[in-house]
């Protein structure tokens, strides 16, 4: 069933979009990531212009994050204080990101920058998670679950503006979550992702938050950051396609609910190693494509 997308200005099979939304929504529910890092490249692959894919994906992530965060909210797994501080950086970062996006688009480098961002971040995050999960699994099989030092004191703990986050059981500098939020915000705008795949590991490994509140808190702030990206992309670049977004999010919100249920039945390490593998596969594919000699070294730009 072909449907014409008014902003993307092409016809796409509506069932394909629903299916894509469902499949990626499921993964987003399981892992607590927006799924944008998989969806945006796939949308570009099926012929949606990259700027429209990025803008629309931000819109869709708003919906899947809302439905995801409500489930976590009821279990009390959202640290609002931490979320708000992350959000502060996130709003600033995503606004700068949308501005950068427009400039890069004009220079004809946006596709490359999007892909390089993916390769870099997916590579680092995927690699770290993979190694970490393997270690955790080995530890579990081993003797006593020696959790190591809970509070490793590094230069990070010397930063000013310390704040107490009760739900996360942390006493750290507010600059840290603001910084994390900022970086993820920029990437969110440039890559059309919620940034959960960077945010979640950063919260666990960098901030040292307990795993239980990580996913809910990440989703909480992703809602606002992606809403900001949606608004700015729609306002400045007219690249948000609501028809496309509605099709994707219909599939995605249903998938996410099912995924969240499936997620509670899986063990943390298994979950993480699965996500790490997926992240590395997407990264490898993108890197491979960048080095592959193109069929035609000439290509058409986006003209308004």
């Amino acid at each position: 069933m072909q449907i014409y997308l008014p902003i993307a200005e092409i016809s796409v099979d509506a069932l394909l979009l629903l299916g894509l939304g469902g499949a990626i929504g499921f993964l987003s529910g399981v892992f607590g990531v927006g799924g944008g890092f998989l969806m945006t490249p796939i949308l570009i692959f099926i012929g949606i212009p990259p700027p429209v894919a990025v803008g629309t994906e931000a819109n869709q992530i708003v919906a899947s994050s809302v439905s995801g965060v409500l489930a976590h909210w009821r279990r009390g797994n959202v640290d609002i204080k931490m979320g708000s501080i992350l959000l502060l950086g996130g709003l600033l970062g995503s606004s700068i990101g949308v501005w950068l996006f427009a400039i890069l688009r004009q220079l004809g480098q946006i596709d490359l920058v999007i892909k390089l961002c993916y390769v870099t971040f997916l590579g680092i995050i995927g690699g770290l998670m993979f190694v970490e999960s393997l270690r955790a699994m080995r530890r579990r099989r081993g003797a006593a679950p020696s959790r190591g030092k809970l509070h490793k004191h590094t230069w990070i703990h010397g930063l000013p503006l310390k704040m107490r986050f009760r739900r996360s059981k942390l006493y750290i500098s507010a600059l840290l979550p603001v910084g994390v939020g900022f970086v993820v915000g920029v990437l969110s705008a440039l890559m059309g992702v919620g940034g959960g795949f960077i945010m979640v590991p950063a919260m666990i490994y960098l901030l040292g938050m307990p795993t239980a509140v990580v996913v809910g808190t990440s989703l909480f702030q992703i809602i606002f950051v992606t809403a900001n990206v949606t608004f700015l992309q729609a306002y400045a670049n007219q690249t948000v396609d609501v028809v496309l977004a509605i099709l994707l999010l219909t599939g995605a919100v249903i998938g996410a609910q099912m995924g969240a249920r499936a997620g509670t039945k899986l063990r943390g390490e298994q979950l993480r190693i699965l996500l790490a593998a997926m992240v590395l596969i997407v990264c490898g594919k993108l890197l491979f494509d960048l080095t592959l000699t193109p069929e035609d070294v000439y290509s058409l730009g986006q003209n308004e």
Partner: protein
Amino acid sequence: MKRAVLVFGILLLAAPARGAPLVVDLSNHLVAITTGFAGAEVLLFGAVDQPGDVVVVVRGPARPITMYRKSRIAGIWVNTAAMTFEKHSSDTGNPPSFYAIASSRPLDEVAPHRVLSRNGMILEELDELELPSAKASKNVEAEWRAALIRNQERIGLYQTEVKRIGFLGERLFRTRLTLPANVPTGIYLVKTVLFVDGAEVSAQTTPLFVSKIGVEAEIFDFAHQQSAWYGVIAILVALVAGWLAHVAFRKA
């Protein structure tokens, strides 16, 4: 389409249309892009008052086209050069966003190359696809131009293969114009030329409108004219959808 067949039938009856050397019409002057749009076919039909050859050229709305060229930097392919094809002198315009051609016989049998070229029937020689010498030297220009045609052809917007125009008897002809799903919107010009013994005898230009109709058009206009409200509504839709899904699943 039924109406077209009817008109075609009437033309058939009134075939020896004296006075007008060339009469042309389209089955449809408006291609409406609606929700289910997956490309369109328009029937072009007409009559001539003497035996000859007919050539049809379809051109989409003119607009600048930017192209990029990649080269390898540290193992990665990067856009390193850009070129924009656009209006470059007072007597040429922007390049056409769409181009298709049809002929009753192979082009080289219809008229001398020079005549065809003057009529815009040789895509490679369109003035609009020229780059001024300030932008590119002669051989560099040829490369860019070939690349533009090749890339537009790949997405179906330049149809370089000459389509057939079928004749019914000596007077009536018809052909199908195919527009892919990604056609740009705007006014298309369909130019039909009658050649007799290699000389242009008569020509007629018919407009064809391609536009978004209905919900699609309204969404597009709203997004471009009320961008801020469009953004707010997009967010609200997402918030409501997410909340609905949560409620639906909690009860289940």
